[in-house]
């Protein structure tokens, strides 16, 4: 029985934590939020130099050739420090999609450039203010060209490439697009967490190549979303842990009515509830990490379970962290709001909580589940 990370993986996590603290990733996140920038280029360069963008990329393509579990521990630390970099878009979504579905030729061409940082990727799915489905896609792929408009695409400005889920005839197809093509228009969209950049992308007869099987794009995308949900769950538990720690520290040093507020049961029980939600989320995320790393049949249910619990845990911890801080928690100066905003962003970036509960029930109905 071993539902835990190895010593080497824990060591990697520790190094990641030290690196992000030394680089003041949280401060960088605030700086991005307060300026017009959409990510921190210096921090991103350093992350590329550490080889993190190539963690999962096989050595033959210049990567580190490590597994998903190594990626999970790094995700937890990135989530804890709110690192303002396009890592999740490029690694959890774009790279995962290529590793899973690209041809050898496509891999040979792009994977080495993801390792070197010359290529940064993202993933475009949403089109309107409604959950995307295979039926309601409008962005269209035909004869090697892509047309239409995607919204709420992360990191599209720094990204050189995107994987776009598009309609082809009456089905979906996953396409690879060079965003630097003259036919592409990328426009900034304001969002609730300005430490991360979100954009609309308009394609006008943009050259595109198919990734995976034509017409199987929806199934492909669902699989990639399950990968990403697991990895984002680790960012979420990282954020939940950090906000619980912040609330805990504050409850010990803040006095009211002559005693630390952490000695009042109202605060104790609030923090205990946060700990409970976090523990459930963490354990479910570990299980999803196992399912992801072994490509188990249980992955759809495991990823949805991790996603639902981690979304709930991070949102609860981030909101109750503000509540524990009282008025101070509502100020721009304190960091509480950075986590509050990120927790909401991460609760929607791969689809809403309700959508993932629905996916979970559907996977129970299909019965590939933990008994």
């Amino acid at each position, binding site marked *: *029985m071993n539902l835990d990370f190895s010593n080497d993986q824990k060591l990697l996590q520790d190094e990641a934590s030290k690196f992000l603290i030394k680089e003041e990733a949280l401060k960088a996140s605030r700086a991005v939020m307060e300026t017009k920038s959409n990510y921190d280029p210096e921090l991103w360069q350093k992350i590329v130099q550490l080889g993190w963008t190539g963690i999962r990329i096989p050595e033959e393509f210049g990567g580190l050739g490590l597994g998903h579990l190594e990626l999970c521990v790094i995700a937890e630390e990135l989530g804890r420090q709110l690192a303002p970099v396009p890592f999740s878009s490029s690694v959890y979504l774009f790279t995962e999609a290529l590793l899973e579905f690209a041809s050898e030729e496509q891999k040979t061409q792009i994977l080495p450039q993801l390792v070197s940082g010359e290529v940064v990727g993202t993933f475009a799915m949403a089109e309107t203010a409604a959950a995307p489905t295979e039926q309601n896609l409008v962005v269209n792929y035909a004869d090697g060209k892509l047309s239409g408009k995607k919204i709420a695409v992360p990191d599209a400005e720094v990204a050189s490439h995107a994987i776009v889920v598009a309609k082809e005839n009456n089905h979906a197809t996953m396409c690879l697009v060079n965003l630097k093509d003259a036919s592409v228009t990328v426009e900034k969209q304001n969002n609730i967490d300005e430490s991360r950049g979100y954009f609309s992308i308009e394609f006008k007869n943009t050259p595109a190549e198919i990734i995976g099987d034509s017409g199987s794009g929806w199934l492909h995308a669902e699989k990639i979303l399950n990968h990403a949900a697991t990895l984002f769950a680790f960012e979420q538990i990282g954020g939940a842990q950090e906000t619980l720690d912040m609330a805990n520290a504050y409850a010990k040093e803040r006095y009211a009515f002559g005693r630390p507020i952490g000695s009042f*049961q109202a605060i104790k029980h609030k923090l205990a509830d946060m700990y409970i939600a976090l*523990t459930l989320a963490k354990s479910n995320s570990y299980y999803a990490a*196992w399912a992801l790393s072994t490509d188990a049949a249980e992955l759809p249910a495991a990823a949805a379970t991790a996603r639902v619990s981690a979304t709930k845990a991070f949102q609860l911890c981030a909101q109750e962290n503000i509540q524990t801080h009282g008025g101070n928690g509502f100020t721009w100066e304190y960091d509480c709001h950075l986590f509050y905003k990120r927790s909401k962003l991460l609760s929607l970036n791969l689809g809403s909580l309700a959508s993932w509960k629905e996916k*979970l029930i559907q996977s129970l109905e299909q019965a590939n589940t933990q008994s």
Partner: protein
Amino acid sequence: MDFKDTPEEAKFRAKCRAWLEENAELKSAETNSTEKMNVGNESVLEKARVWQKKKYDAGWAMLHWPEEFGGIGASPIERIIWSEEESKFDVPRGIYEIGLGMAGPVLMEYATDEQKARYLPPMAEGKEIWCQLFSEPSAGSDVAGLRSKAVQDGDKWIVNGQKVWTSGAQFSDYGILVVRHDPSAAKHKGLTFFFVDMKSKGIEVKPIQQITGGSSFNEVYFNDVEIPDSHRLGEIGDGWKVAITTLMNERLAVGDANGVDAREAFELAKQQDDRGAPMIENQAVRESIADWYCEANGLKNTKLRTMSALSRGDTPGPEASITKVVSANKLQAIGNFGMDAADMAGMLMEKDQKTFEFQQAWMGAAGLRIAGGTDEILKNIIAERVLGLPQEARADKGLAFKDIPTGKN
């Protein structure tokens, strides 16, 4: 990451399994749902005795105990493996839990060698049943506020007072007992710990009827009960220290709630008609079941993390402390759902209905949220022991026990 046993664990599991297959029947669907509902019933008691004795003779009864007391010196992970395997068989469980789980460790730590040799083997064998006499009418969550009095008289003590919520007192041979020997000392300082022969003169046991109609616990009255000083465990005044080890054990280790879970709610919703369609097609129902499924698996995977640490020979983290508070609340919610699913008929209680086990869960969960540490006490423990938050300010701090304000009871 993997869910495999190590080669040694696999070998041990095979050994457990082989013995169980020779000595018991595997569970069937019917045995699953009726289990635990009949604790206290004579025939169940007799079946439990027979099973306990069988286990004892083979070394499985208290497998982590040293051989001299009837164990086989098993490691924590081996205990879990045994328990996992045993739970797959249709055998009586639950009757010896308090004695073996709470009285056992206290005797092991505080009794003389002679007493250990006298009491531990029959406890493991199931020949003698033990109960726990801590709570009182005026001392529940604040159990150190107990008032039962012990007065020393030469080499014996005279005990007067009342205990309550004592599971199994009606069929117990011995009990572990905390009483107040000094009301002029501070609350936690005036307590002393004993074990007592339940057949002693002056002990009266009265069953308490629960909201389920059943009676698994009791009031226990002490009228001038004599206890020899040699039955004292720990020093005079160390009663709280001795008690707290068992309490922490009880509060943190009370496991997952038995009964209907997310899986049963899901199966019910698939079969249940909801205005002409299966209830599982109702969006609100889907979301609730998803939430319970996430909690159920969160607990299951938390247990797997704890086992992983034990398997490595490490001390597990504090994560298991969430188990009871999550599972008891989930049980109450799922019980409630199962009754609502039947609409007006959910009110009707008939044993052959599928609603019945949800009604049982709903009733039982109300007690489970209190037994062995209330939700509130468990959250205090998480806050103080896991998160390191300071204790609540206390109105009884520094006062002699007799000067502490009390309510009507």
